[in-house]
């Protein structure tokens, strides 16, 4: 029991600060990936370097933005930051599709707003009970995780649905020809799309803590938090991500399905 209590205590040792020299040394790891890519002619050497530079610029920028938002501590700045994250994630999810369009942009945007927004509100108000309600130290990292996973769910649901509708064109028309509703005709396609959007998160629930320690938990432990506290946060995170993914993937599949049919319940000629 005492060992367990000790494990639950905060580590009082100061966190090791990283200098720019340390980051330069870390860049050596990128050189390994770059060298391997060039050596075997993988064709990703340039992308590895560009990706590394982008990640440095983006992370440093976001670091300064977060410092600013934390210092100013105003609710509207926090909300603006969350909305910006949502917009960028929406555009990224839609741009990944074979046929990105404005209609899908609207569907994904609203689905992610509902899926991610409701989850964040629930976690912030009922589970973590942040004070003040907009506390950026919690809301921004939590929303970052939520919106990142919701983005993947939306992209997977849309991509899979378009693929299923194209592959099942004959089956869907056979249902329609019997007098079935578009909901019934596309039921199996929608089911597959929702499933595809949820499977990666379900797999994560299955292996978390065994195959990998999640980033947030690792970060908290390095920052000196007790592993038990970190675990509790991680449990909340996993549950909230599952909810956000399920809501977003389901909404995208259900709403996107409508775009494949005309008001006269015909499968659109160009669908798929």
């Amino acid at each position, binding site marked *: 029991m005492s060992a367990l209590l000790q494990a639950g205590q905060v580590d009082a040792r100061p966190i090791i600060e990283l200098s720019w020299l340390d980051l330069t040394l870390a860049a050596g790891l990128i050189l390994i990936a770059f060298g391997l890519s060039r050596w075997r002619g993988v064709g990703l050497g340039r992308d590895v370097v560009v990706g590394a530079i982008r990640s440095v610029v983006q992370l440093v920028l976001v670091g300064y933005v977060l410092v600013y938002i934390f210092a100013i501590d105003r609710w509207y700045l926090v909300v603006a930051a969350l909305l910006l994250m949502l917009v960028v994630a929406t555009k990224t999810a839609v741009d990944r599709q074979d046929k990105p369009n404005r209609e899908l942009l609207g569907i994904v945007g609203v689905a992610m707003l509902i899926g991610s927004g409701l989850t964040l509100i629930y976690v912030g108000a009922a589970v973590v009970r942040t004070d003040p309600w907009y506390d950026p130290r919690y809301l921004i990292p939590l929303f970052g995780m939520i919106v990142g996973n919701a983005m993947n769910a939306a992209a997977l649901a849309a991509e899979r649905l378009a693929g299923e509708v194209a592959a099942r064109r004959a089956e869907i028309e056979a249902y*329609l020809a*019997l007098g079935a509703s578009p909901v019934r005709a596309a039921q199996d396609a929608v089911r597959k799309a929702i499933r595809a959007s949820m499977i990666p998160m379900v797999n994560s629930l299955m292996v978390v803590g065994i195959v990998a320690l999640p980033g947030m938990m690792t970060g908290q432990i390095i920052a000196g938090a007790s592993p038990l506290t970190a675990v509790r946060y991680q449990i909340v995170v996993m549950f909230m991500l599952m909810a956000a993914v399920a809501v977003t993937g389901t909404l995208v599949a259900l709403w996107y399905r409508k775009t494949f049919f005309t008001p006269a319940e015909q499968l659109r000629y160009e669908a798929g």
Partner: protein
Amino acid sequence: MSISPPVTPPAFALHGVRLERAGVRVLDDVSLDIPDGQVTALIGPSGAGKSSLLRLLNRLDDPDAGEIRCRGRPVVDMPVRQLRRQAGFVFQTPVMFPGTVRENLEVAANIGDLPAAEVSNRVVESMGLAELDTALADRAADRLSVGEKQRANIARALMTGPEILLMDEPTASLDPETAERLGRTIRHLSTACGVTIVLATHRLKEAKAVCTFVVMLDGGHVVEAGPASALFEESAHPRLRAFLERVG
């Protein structure tokens, strides 16, 4: 005072129908009456517009211009699901849903809101009408032969109690002997059950043996339409004669 007999409206009346696909005019100014209670064949070379016309009749597609009436009523004014249950569709390539033959037929019954107590009887009845061996009812649908699948598709279309059956080249993927047997089944559906049938076919022999009314299409236009006997024996239309000589 003489009372004139009631005039039966045609099963389908098309007026000035035009359909375009990807900038190509598939049907152009098609005006046509398809009689009720008969087996009508849509014949013509590939690309004539037979399948496209058939798809317009139960609104799997809508024309870009013109009007289509089903028994006197504009199809756009009918609830589309009611129209589709009334005018069943059999596709060229049979499509089986997952599950057994019985489950395939039950799906159609559920879509057609058939009372649960009547479903079993209707399954047997529909399989009988489609001349599909009832011993196949519990076989996985995807394990049937192509001919059996096509009969299962006909049986499934009959589950909603249609008064009209639209059939898109139903014998195209069958060997001649199986096709001939299916042709007899189609004729039987019309004569014994009073189902109006509109059939797109490239088999002239089938059209002659099965159909009572024939419409020849070419390049999206109606070349000629009329009773089968008159059209096959007496028509002097050069395009029709050329087609008959080519495929006959």
